[in-house]
């Protein structure tokens, strides 16, 4: 039985789709069989970020309508042969899918996979319930600004209402800019962990590599020369239960920031 993880956030545009795609690639690279489910219809869909938009034949809606089985709707990744996508439909509205539908689909797929990762809409949006219901773990993505964290806090409250205990909810800090922490313009991981009272599973820097990659349809983690790829690999290893210190997430940053990061991390340890 595969582990079912939902990637969600309080507000949109914080990096859920990017993280879902790269986490999927990294888990697949580590030899896991992975299925990604697109439960969000955003600006840049999971299929585009993965470069699979031209290979879609069936979508989630065709599965819900009983036209095809979940397996038949899956699209295999071009490079990673053990990575699959269940695409979202662009035309269908989210009300056409119910949480029960999602549960049934995930249940049918789960024996064939090590991980099923669901790209969810933000907590305030429709379709959130669909994405969350089948999952047993949640990754909440936030950027390090106060409004985003407050929204993350709200989504954690919603997850609690859906029966998630706090141990099953982990936080990912995305688009972290170390020079802003230095100037005191950005919240540290310590601040964020205190506010949310939850474990931080990964810190991912703000990087142009991500934007370039999402335009080419090859996730950064599949690009050998990418620096940020290591951050996604760290996340994937932690998801698998490996003990990778959070400190390692800062190796990506240039030497000039080392002092800041040491400080950042020592605070984190104390807290």
């Amino acid at each position, binding site marked *: 039985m595969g582990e079912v993880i939902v990637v969600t956030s309080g507000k949109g545009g914080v990096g859920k789709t990017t993280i879902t795609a790269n986490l999927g690639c990294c888990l697949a690279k580590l030899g896991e069989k992975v299925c990604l489910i697109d439960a969000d219809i955003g600006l840049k869909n999971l299929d585009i970020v993965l470069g699979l938009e031209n290979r879609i034949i069936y979508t989630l809606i065709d599965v819900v309508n009983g036209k095809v089985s979940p397996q038949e709707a899956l699209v295999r990744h071009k490079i990673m042969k053990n990575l699959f996508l269940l695409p979202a439909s662009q035309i269908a509205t989210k009300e056409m899918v119910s949480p029960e539908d999602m549960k049934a689909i995930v249940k049918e797929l789960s024996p064939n996979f090590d991980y099923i990762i669901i790209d969810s809409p933000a907590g305030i949006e429709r379709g959130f319930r669909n994405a969350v219901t089948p999952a047993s773990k949640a990754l909440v993505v936030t950027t390090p600004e106060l409004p985003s964290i407050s929204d993350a806090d*709200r989504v954690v409250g919603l997850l609690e*209402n859906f029966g998630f205990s706090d141990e099953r909810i982990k936080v990912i800090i995305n688009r972290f800019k170390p020079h802003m922490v230095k100037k005191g313009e950005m919240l540290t991981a310590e601040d964020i962990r205190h506010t949310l009272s939850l474990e931080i599973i990964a810190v991912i820097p703000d990087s142009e590599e991500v934007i370039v990659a999402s335009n080419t349809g090859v996730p950064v983690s599949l690009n050998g020369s990418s620096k940020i790829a290591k951050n996604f690999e760290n996340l994937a290893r932690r998801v698998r239960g490996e003990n990778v210190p959070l400190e390692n997430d800062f190796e990506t940053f240039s030497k000039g920031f080392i002092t800041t990061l040491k400080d950042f991390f020592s605070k984190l340890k104390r807290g």
Partner: protein
Amino acid sequence: MVDFKMTRDGLVLVVRDYQNLEDVLNAISTRVTQMGDFFARGDRIALMIENHVKHSQDIPRLVAHIRGLGLEVSQILIGSPQEVSEKTMKVEVRNVVEGVGKIVKKTIRSGQTVIHSGDVVIFGNLNRGAEILAGGSVVVFGKAFGTIRAGLNEGENAVIAALDLQPTLMQIAGFVSHAKGQEGVPSVAHVKGNRIVIEPFDKLDFERSD
């Protein structure tokens, strides 16, 4: 026992003081059915409960019941049904923390509400955007950033205490304050001389100045 009132803020379901919750739930079902297709699924209404403090432990069930009928409760109005007006206090209902007794061993998050007719003790933080409604006193063993309303039942003898008292808004009985305690210093807010004062825990003076 239950009735709908149209106000500037939209439709308010007024529940008069009652003895038996089951009767009220049945009455609500009947009333909503009577109104037939006046409502669309997911319509938002406000809820006013007469003597809400006495019935505060029923609020989660009332809200759940109304939701079961296909309506969403957007806010709870506090005050008397005679004065459904600007004077009534409004409480946004997002998600009420279930199974609330006097002691809550968790952080109350943005959008969550704790409602209890007596004293409330939180072991955890009260985050921004979270709210406590207590008939009696409130103690937060953690940082309090959200909204705290105390003494709704007990009146101005109720107190509010926190290890770090930085609330968005505090209310004790009819008194409201936006003041904050000294950062990082366990503090107590109480009513003294017709206003809310905040004092550090070790310099506490409950004596009335009036």
